[in-house]
């Protein structure tokens, strides 16, 4: 096995004069689940299409499973499973037809593997793909990416369109892949999608890698919007200055604030009163990116 599953060095892709990717340095280790996070248009799909040799870099290098994607060709792609967020196929065929064909292109997949995955995802393979809902179509994509148990899974916004139950099933499949020693490279613009499975997260913004972090660290830094309804009005002073709390507003019995890092101090302060309800919104990824962006700017000024 290669030392790294995916490496890129100053990988750059220009589309005419507009930038797709501006010097990306990536390092994905074998056997890890790597979340590739960024807002829409940041260059996630461009990166993935470069790794699959669907497009060619303007400059820089990429290495996938120890091979240049351009030179690795078909032999390299045999070891990869790929799923795009908008899984597009000719809708006139049935799921079974398509998966048999794709399996044959891979030199066949183990007997019963396709049916087992389909029944696990509750997918009817006998129906024409155009008659399937967006979610069910995406399941066909999940099956084709996983069916040959590839060394490396490259998943581009994989759970778009899947309902919450299936997202959980998908998370389980990613964990099993990791347990089996497979490497997973997964892009997303939704934090929650990657934080359940990823070991590390790389954040990309405007074609550049902004930071790489352990998921745990990222979660501690993430900013949440918190809303607490108390039974009776509370005093602002009790909550002002708590660690991690900012933008604090108290309106009678309703408290609103932004919370970064651990929730402990806020919860303990709130526990002194009767809490009717507590709402903690998903960490906002855009804000997270903005946070990194600001940090960078400040850094430049300081230097």
């Amino acid at each position, binding site marked *: 096995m290669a030392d790294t599953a995916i490496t890129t060095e100053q990988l750059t892709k220009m589309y005419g004069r507009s930038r797709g990717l501006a010097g990306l340095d990536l390092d994905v280790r074998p056997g890890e689940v790597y979340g590739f996070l960024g807002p829409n248009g940041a260059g996630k*799909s461009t990166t993935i299409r470069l790794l699959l040799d*669907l497009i060619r870099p303007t400059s820089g290098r990429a290495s996938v499973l120890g091979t240049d994607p351009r030179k690795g060709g078909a032999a390299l*792609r045999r070891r990869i499973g*790929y799923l795009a967020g908008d899984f597009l196929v000719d809708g006139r065929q049935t799921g079974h037809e398509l998966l048999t*064909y794709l399996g*044959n*292109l891979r030199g066949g997949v183990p007997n019963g593997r396709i049916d087992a995955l389909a029944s696990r995802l509750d997918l009817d393979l006998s129906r024409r793909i155009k008659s399937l809902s967006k979610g069910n179509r995406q399941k066909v994509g999940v099956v084709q990416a996983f069916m040959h148990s590839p060394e490396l899974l490259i998943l581009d916004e994989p759970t778009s369109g899947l309902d919450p139950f299936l997202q959980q099933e998908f998370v389980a499949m990613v964990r099993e892949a990791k347990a089996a020693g497979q490497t997973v490279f997964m892009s997303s613009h939704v934090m929650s999608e990657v934080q359940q499975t990823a070991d590390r997260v790389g954040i990309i913004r405007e074609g550049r890698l902004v930071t790489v972090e352990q998921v745990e660290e990222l979660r501690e830094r993430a900013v949440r919007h918190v809303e607490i309804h108390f039974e009776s009005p509370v005093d602002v002073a009790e909550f002002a200055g708590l660690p991690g709390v900012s933008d604090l507003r108290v309106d009678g019995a309703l408290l609103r604030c932004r919370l970064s890092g651990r929730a402990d101090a806020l919860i303990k302060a709130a526990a002194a009163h009767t809490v009717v309800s507590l709402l903690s919104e998903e960490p906002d990824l855009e804000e997270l990116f903005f946070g990194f962006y600001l940090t960078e700017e400040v850094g430049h000024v300081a230097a």
Partner: protein
Amino acid sequence: MLLRNVFTKSLWDARRSLLGWTLAIVAVGAMYAAFWPSMQSPEMAKAMEAYPRGVLEALNYDDLTTAAGYLGGSVYGLLVPLLVAVFTIGAGTRAVAGDEEAGTLDLVLAHPVSRTQLALQRFAGLVVSVAAVALGLWLVMLALTGPVGFDGVTAGEFAAANLQLAAFGICFGALAFAVGAATGRKGLTLGLSAGIAVLAYLANGVIPMADGLEWTRSLSPFHWYLGGDPLSRGLDAGGTLLLLGVAAALVAIGTVVFERRDVAV
């Protein structure tokens, strides 16, 4: 099993359109061929004489007094080759550009298939499809030989004409395939290929009527296809090789460019 590889899958995907086109082309050919007995009546001969020579030539009706001349003009000269060209230009466009614009090419190319393999196997599917159409037309012409009577056009001469028809179709299929593989743009591919087909048609029958433009005929695939008069003189090896040679060159260029360029999203 037709889901085995890119080649067989392309035939499987084209099964309905192939059946439709074969039936349509064979039906048109059979209909025109069935008119042959009535073309021999004195009234009809007189009616045709009334047409200016140039109009008849433009329509490939050079000689209406023999079965070979009539069939060469009506069946093999106009509607059938135009239908075959439309069919193969459509198929050639779908092979790469259509798939690419639909966004469905990425998935197959993410599999262990090289772009060259994909392109060549799909083109092979096109060749087999055209061959099926030509074979169908040949069989129907043979079947009509008994009841209609094409005085003296042999099975071998019909075979030559249909073989050259297939080569003609492959040539235009290769053109659309090459433009599509090189650019990935469906509209451009269809437009350019159809434009060239129309020019080629005009260069064979209409443009050469102008003084000093006789030479344009030798550049037209329509001329390479029918200029050697296969229905009365048998296989025209030169014309057929020219059609297939141009097709091979186009396929090679298209595939090489496709191998090197970015695949569009």
